[in-house]
């Protein structure tokens, strides 16, 4: 791992140097030894600032831990582990900084940073903080910067080490409103018999997850709850045949405005919200088709890994001027008689140039029994189904959530006992 080390003068250091230059100039021009003494005395701290700051960063090992996925507007916990491998010297006031970058954009401001007040020789300290990406996309954590201005704050020593890591940020999930819930939960015409559960209990056992308000208390797994110190419930895969086909028509004009881009983001947020809701509650068999600059579809069940794949795709999906809904649909094998078809679109249903599935003039072309709904972003119908997240509420939710600490915390770690990175995390 190659390190880039450099030392630079801080603003305070420049002020200090200017005063020093003034004194040296006065000493030389006026031939005053006492000014020379003062200048020499002032040079000492400057020199040792440079030396100590540089020395403080030697033999430091840093590990970054961050989840591989997240949602726009939601905080991600980021952990940094700093180990001082020197034998007899502490490091003070070390700042570890990350500058996640989305594509060619400039790094986000403020940077993701943690502060290690003191790392004793041979000690490992852990600091965690939260990072709140504002937009979806693929974020690169390229360089990990370690810096210190110890002891006087005049000179900053900085080390940059490559720590490549990628985080995919899916669109921000919003809130499904009552209109949507009512519509999606309504059983299909004459299809009640087809929605019988075929597994035991509420479905086949899928896994354990944290208990949330609204979950049945019947399926709380007490042994796991006692072990983990929080309520844990059994999760079952819903075997009902209620199907939801969700097509996204991500259209954008040739010369888009900011409003056009925003409409695309709202559509994607809606998709993410529905997907999360569907996979969390596990009520539907879900098919999602995306049409934008390209077209693709995913069949989702609670147990399938396709959800993460879809979220990754949503993180980077680009709209297009001619979205091919037909292609997104063709990848679907079919919709059951009780299924629902929703097209969320950034344009109106009858707008020209739309490449609908073959024979789908209005809703006639859809399979029999299909409930069809066209949701145009910005329309009153859409507004009655979906609401974007409030930024403040999201922040409050982050603060309240125990798994996503907003504050950074430091704790010492026994190097021998520090375990590997979380399964969904990465290290640098």
């Amino acid at each position, binding site marked *: 791992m190659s390190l880039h080390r450099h030392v630079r003068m801080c603003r305070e250091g420049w002020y200090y140097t200017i005063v020093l230059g003034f004194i040296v100039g006065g000493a030389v021009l006026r*031939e005053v030894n*006492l000014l*020379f003494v*003062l200048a020499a005395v002032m040079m000492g701290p400057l020199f040792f600032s440079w030396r100590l700051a540089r020395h403080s960063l030697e033999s430091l090992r840093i590990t970054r831990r961050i989840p591989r996925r997240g949602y726009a507007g939601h905080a991600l916990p980021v952990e940094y582990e700093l180990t001082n491998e020197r034998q007899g010297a502490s490091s*003070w006031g070390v700042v570890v900084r990350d500058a996640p970058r989305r594509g060619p954009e400039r790094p986000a401001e403020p940077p993701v940073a943690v502060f290690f*007040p003191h790392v004793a020789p041979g000690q490992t300290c852990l600091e965690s*903080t939260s990072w709140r990406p504002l937009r979806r996309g693929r974020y690169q954590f390229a360089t990990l910067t370690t810096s210190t201005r110890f002891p*006087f*704050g*005049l000179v900053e020593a900085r080390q940059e080490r490559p720590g490549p890591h990628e985080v995919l940020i899916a669109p921000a999930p919003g809130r499904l409103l009552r209109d949507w819930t009512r519509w999606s939960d309504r059983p299909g015409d004459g299809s009640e018999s087809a929605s019988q559960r075929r597994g035991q209990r509420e479905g086949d056992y899928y896994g354990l997850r944290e208990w949330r308000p609204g979950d049945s208390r019947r399926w709380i797994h007490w042994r796991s709850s006692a072990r983990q110190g929080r309520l844990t419930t059994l999760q079952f895969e819903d075997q009902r045949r209620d199907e939801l086909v969700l097509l996204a028509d991500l259209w954008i004009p040739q010369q888009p405005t900011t409003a056009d881009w925003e409409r695309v983001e709202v559509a994607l947020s809606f998709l993410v919200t529905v997907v999360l809701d569907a996979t969390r509650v596990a009520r539907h068999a879900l098919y999602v088709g995306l049409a934008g600059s390209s077209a693709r579809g995913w069949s989702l069940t609670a147990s399938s890994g396709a959800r993460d794949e879809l979220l990754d795709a949503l993180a980077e999906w680009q709209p297009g001027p001619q979205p091919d809904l037909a292609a997104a649909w063709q990848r679907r094998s079919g919709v059951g008689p009780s299924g629902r078809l929703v097209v969320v679109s950034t344009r109106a249903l009858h707008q020209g140039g739309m490449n609908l599935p073959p024979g789908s003039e209005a809703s006639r072309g859809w399979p029999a029994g299909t409930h069809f709904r066209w949701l145009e972003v910005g329309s009153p119908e859409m507004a009655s189904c979906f609401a974007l997240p409030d930024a403040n509420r999201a922040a409050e939710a982050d603060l309240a959530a125990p798994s996503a600490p907003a504050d950074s915390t430091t704790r010492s770690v026994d190097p021998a006992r520090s375990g590997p990175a979380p399964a969904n995390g990465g290290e640098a």
Partner: protein
Amino acid sequence: MTVERRLQIVLVLLSILGTILLGLGENDSLIPLAMLVAAPCAAIFTDGLGWLRLNRPLANIAALAAVGYTVVDFLRNGAQNQLLAIANLLLYLQLILLFQEKNLRVYWQLLVLSLLEVVVAAAMNLSFHFGVLLLLYLALALIALVLQFVLRESRRWSSRPEQAMTELLKSGALRPVYLVGLVTIVFSLAMFYATPRIQGTSWVGSGRSGARSVGFSRNVSLDEMGRILESHELAMRVSFFDPVNNVPYLLAGQTYFRGAVLTRYSEQIAGRWSPSARRDTMHLPWSPERVPTLVAQEIWLEPTATPTLFSVAPAFRLHDTPQDVVFEPKSGELQRSYAPPLIARQRWQYRLATTGLLNGRSLPLIPDQLAAGTIRRQELYAEIRDCEHFDRRRFPQLAATAEQILREAGALDADRIRKARILEAHFLHSGIYTYSLDFRFPRQPGMDPIEDFIGRHHTGHCEYFATALVLMLRSQKIPARLVVGYKGGEYNAVGNYLLVRQDDAHAWVEVHLESEEVDLLNIPGWHYRGEGAWWRLDPTPAARDIDQTTGSWRTHWDQALDYAEFLWSDYVQGMGPERQRQSLYDPLLTPWREQAAHWLDIRLWPRRLAELARTLRFRVLSSPLYYAGLILLVVLVGWLVHRHHGPALRRAVWERWQRLRLAWKRLRPRAAATTPTVAFYRQFEDLLAKAGQRRPAHLTPREWLDQMATLHGSAAADGEPVAVRAPAGSAAAPALPSRQQFLGAARQLVDQFYRVRYSQTSLAPDEQQEIEQALAVVGQFVRAGREAGMAV
């Protein structure tokens, strides 16, 4: 206490210290006093209680007013006071900031303003106290910088700044400050002395107080009235040492430092002495060789308004005596030939030699230089004539008194030496005269001060006594002159020098004696036989000896302080190009230059190489220093390797060691536990080892033998010892030993082993022979077994 509170306190202390330094530079105590009151008030009422806080607009208006006032002040004053105006502006701004609500910006501004105050103080202050306070300032400033760093970084990066600050301080973030402080001092010294002063003659600076000079004057006036106040100001420091080995020379009595020589008592102005007519000057003569009483004197003369130099007479030139030092042959007075105003403003150092000290005391004679050839006879006679000039009409009372004294002593017709001694004793021991600096008594108007002194009040100081004696001697046709200089001083045991102050100024008399008269004096240690001399007479009573008592701590403290001040002014304040060359470059570079010149001479190389080889062989390799250096080098290399490749090297060494250990174990299993200590028995086991038989560690030799006997048949174990010998004279090969013979030989060896090993007895010669035979049997048996492919 929070970090911020600590920072506030340190900044208050820094502000106070900065203004104290400024006050020292300005010679003004008002500024430090104002800050001494204002800064704690700000700390309590603004930072602590929050009662008094200037808001931003008000503070800006106040700052603008301060700047405006300063600009007016700046334009109105001269260059020196312009600096004062800037200093005052710094103070005003600092006061305004102190009463503002603090944030990181204000803290930093306070620190910078305080630093600028010190800069201005450094430009104005030349004293030693500045250096001491600067060290204190350095410590406080470093602490302030660290506290600011802690405050700023914690607030900027940490989500819990208070906790981060506490952790930083508790973990010893201030600890490096002490180290940095100490190393900074060393670093500063190195920087200060190593940086070349390439221009100028002095790096003293102007200072607020301007040029200060000692109060010596070449003119003596006896017409003062009132009380004369003695000045305790420093005149010079003098150290004496052996010119050969630089060992300090200790003084035992009072020393006379000759200064101006005055010959003419003014005829126009009563009581006024002046030098004789214009005198030529010349370079000092070189110091005489092989004179045991030769003593070197180094003098640091404080700034003076006259070119007169002081020394113990007679003075001679040394190789490092400045060229500026000249002397007048007629008077023997030392002078500085060139004294530009800039130089005269600072202390001046010069080295001379003298033969005027014997056993720590000043000799009373100074050669008149006639024999040395530095003065011509007519010049000396002219000087003597001047020294005989006496107008009886001006000093009737004095002349009559002199005659009366001599008459009473029966010495009217005595020689000059006796007359001079009687007259000197009159002033010293008659009890008529009183030494005093108080002239608050009525003087006779129109009367010469000396006539008044002799005839009426009999009260005066050294100049009165010396003048009276000179004139009395002249009334008796004895050539005499007045000498003004310093006498005595205070010995500083810490710095080994004599501290001469203004109140040590003195006047005495010199009488010229011919060579015959000098011989009559018979002064021990006098080396100038056959030469005329000037004889010193000191008629002033109440002389005191040099105070060399160093008992009290106060004396120690004063002496140490004076020495520190002396070093400060000499090695810090006065570090100009010349001083730097003398103190630093010459001592460091001269040996190298000489060595370089020596080594670059190719003609010397063969001889040098031979010397080097001899040195290496006989001196270096046998010297403990060589080995100490070698060990040091090894340790240094080890440390460097450890520092840069420590963990990897340790791992590699450990792995190698483990590998070697395993290999050793494989080669010699349990070797340490079973190695026998008796040679023949070891040979026995080695023989058996060749046949694949090794004694297990848990068996003793006897148990092992029993085990072997069991294997080979129990009966055979009892086999009697046998010797397999070839018949005498037989050339046939000896018969191969049987298994029983082998076991018998083995038992014999084991028994002898126990006997030798545990009873500490030695083997008799025949026993040794038997053992050898037994070993031969074992060897043959083993060989036979190996050849036959059988196990033993």
